[in-house]
């Protein structure tokens, strides 16, 4: 068999293999790509929830400090709700100090799937400053 004939034979075999396998990559990708997208979405949602929890921790810390210093609870409540919408702020003053609780249902995928939410609650207790208290 001459070199030209060998090359032609190789081309025929290559084209036959391609025609046998045609569609497999697409079919497998159609199954695999959504799976990869779901895993990537879960990772993104987890980071989003973690960032929200960290933000709420800071907010409740600041709020408790402010109330213990004598800032009116309503002002603190509206300040939190401005930076963290859809949160419920509970202020419980006791003789020892003030307990501030912030509750929020974090929508894991934002507006995409509002039914899927994680309830998160953060709490901080701060003793009253001198001259402030019940």
């Amino acid at each position, binding site marked *: 068999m001459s070199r030209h004939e060998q090359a032609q034979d190789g081309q025929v075999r290559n084209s036959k*293999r391609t025609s*046998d*396998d045609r569609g*497999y*990559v697409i079919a*497998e*990708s159609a*199954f*695999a*790509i959504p*799976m*990869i997208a779901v*895993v*990537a979405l*879960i*990772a993104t949602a*987890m*980071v989003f*929830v*973690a960032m929200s*929890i*960290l933000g709420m*921790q*800071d907010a409740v*810390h600041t709020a*408790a*400090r402010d109330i213990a210093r004598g800032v009116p609870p309503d002002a603190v409540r509206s300040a939190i709700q401005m930076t963290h919408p859809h949160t419920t702020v509970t202020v419980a003053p006791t003789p*020892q*100090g003030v*307990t501030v609780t912030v509750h929020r249902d974090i929508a894991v995928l934002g507006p995409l799937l509002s039914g899927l939410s994680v309830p998160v609650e953060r*709490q*901080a*207790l*701060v*003793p009253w*400053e*001198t001259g402030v208290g019940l």
Partner: protein
Amino acid sequence: MGDRCRFVNALKGEQGIASVFALALLTGLTVVVGATAAMAQWSIARSQVAIVADLAAVAAARQGACAAAELTALAHDVQLVECSWQGTDVTVSIGSPAVGPAARMLGAETIVAQSRAGF
């Protein structure tokens, strides 16, 4: 020899190659998701302990007594490790048991945060 030929022939086709790549990618992504979750848990726990240390230090400085720091720590379910005065400044250390896979990986048994406040 026969097995080797079958393996080489299987590699010549493209059937299954996308699944192999996808499986490798999925495995990698799953590891990344697990690591992300562990680090997120660790960061949240560390942040919580640091915040309580801040609150305890300020409480101790304002009331002039380590008892206020201890009260604040207990109210947040963490322990007061150390409370020391240097003039009008108080340094407070707060400790909390470390839980989760990140803590095991890092070999940390407790999360300790230190804060200083003065009046």
